[in-house]
């Protein structure tokens, strides 16, 4: 059950809600395996040593041949970076897929529904209450895509 609390007029309301905990990011990558590393239990290593969850989106691997893997990594930013370094050390060629969200501003009604789910702080309403997208802060978590009621946000791959 939720605790009841009194009105909180005097408290500091400007504290940054996203500073408490670093946010997980998602990265999509293409891996090209040389034949000798195809057998490596990659997803196990990523999960165990880096707490990075990996979601395999496409796999073209045959035993004792080279292979290709498209996967999504989900983890804390520095851990994802370290994991990527480790993968490269194994002799696997890594290509990042640049994903980004784009806002079709002609359709935007500036309601703010996307702002409420952007814990990364990449979406704001400016002083005239218009939506502002601060792209460098965007972690491409994609929460805003389904939060927008009028289909303004699209994912670019």
């Amino acid at each position, binding site marked *: 059950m939720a*605790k009841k*609390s009194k*009105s*909180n007029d005097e408290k500091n309301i400007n*504290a940054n809600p996203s500073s408490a905990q670093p946010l997980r990011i998602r990265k999509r990558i293409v891996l090209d395996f040389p034949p000798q590393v195809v057998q490596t239990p990659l997803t196990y290593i990523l999960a165990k040593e880096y707490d990075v969850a990996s979601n395999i989106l496409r796999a073209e691997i045959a035993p004792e041949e080279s292979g290709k893997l498209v996967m999504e990594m989900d983890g804390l930013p520095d851990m994802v970076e370290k994991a990527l370094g480790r993968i490269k050390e194994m002799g696997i060629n890594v290509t990042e897929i640049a994903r980004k969200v784009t806002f079709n501003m002609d359709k935007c*009604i*500036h309601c*703010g529904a996307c702002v409420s789910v952007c814990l990364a702080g990449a979406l704001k309403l400016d002083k005239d209450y*218009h939506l502002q997208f601060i792209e460098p802060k965007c972690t491409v978590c994609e929460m805003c895509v389904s939060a927008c*009621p009028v289909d303004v946000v699209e994912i670019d791959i």
Partner: protein
Amino acid sequence: MERTIEEINEKIVLSKALVLTALEAKELISEKGIKYFLSNVDLVTCASFEMLTNALLYLSFGQTDPLIYFSEAYINNVYSLPAGPTDLAVSSVTASRDNPEYSGSNVIEDLVLGKDLQLKATGKVLPVFPNKEFDTWFNLSNLNCARVFFNQLINQNNIVATNSGDKDIDSHMGTLIGKVENSTFNSSGFLNPLLNDPYCKTLGTGTRIWVAGGNAYITGFGSNHNPCQKRNKYGIPVGPAITLSGFVDLYKIDPKWLRAGYLRSFGPVLFVGVGVPIPVLNEEIANYISITDDKINTTIVDFSIPRRTKPTFGQCTYSELRTSTVMINDKPTLTAPLSSMAGAIQICNILKEAILNKEFYLTKPVEDINLKCDHKKLDSRLSEGVN
């Protein structure tokens, strides 16, 4: 200082009325005081561009040859209820048979966009109405009448939604991230007509209003009307309270201000622009118009429990909410609106222009809004109906 609606209308005719938007009115009051405002300003335009969850579209078609009496009909595959031989009613929340994300809301939007829609109807086959089936494409210009009835067009105040559970919840208040990570609210605050006239002193059944650019009228109180909600010392309710219903003719609508939307795990919604002129009749009304966001409270509700009575986390003001961070259970929490303030500000200006251009006059309500407390709840009754 008192003035009447008739006097203000005369001034509009003579281009002598001083009209301000709610935003301008509040700035003027904080600068020059209530007395100055009361003696100089005749009229203030208020607006909302909020998310609505219920609407009913009513369409009147002409007769077919041979004649038809609709028995079943679909518009763009959305079930449409026959309401007379050639009349159909479409609920904004009925989904299409082949696309759960296309609904009656989209039918309304497509009509005002001037798009062609597909009608598939079957007839009852009666002696005078022998037509068995009728398929056609139509648009707004082929209809004899197209109007939308909104049974909850204007909402006085709303809640702040948050979620203390572990899992995210998709709701009609947007996506609520677990562990009180975010919160949402749906009100245009100090611009909202019912927060500028909290006891409906100038509004009532028959009051002409601006809805998405079309001619619209208030038809009385609406769904979830709860006028006896607790109020703060300024007379502002601290949660959902008065609601007003209204209908609008679709013919003059500007599609910019009527937008169909879809919320995951909830369904169809509509964003509808509403503009309401509030005449500055006397000091009491001037005092209400002076109320700013810091004097408008709302209640923070925990959605983690899907019951009628939900736990609350106390209250906050709209000025706190507008900072984007609000304290909930001692935790700074991200908060954002679901209703467009930018849109509401623009509507205030459009309505102001329409009045100054003598395209819009004030109407006196023909009946007051019922402010008696009678908010009923629906409980199950185990015995049979008693007649």
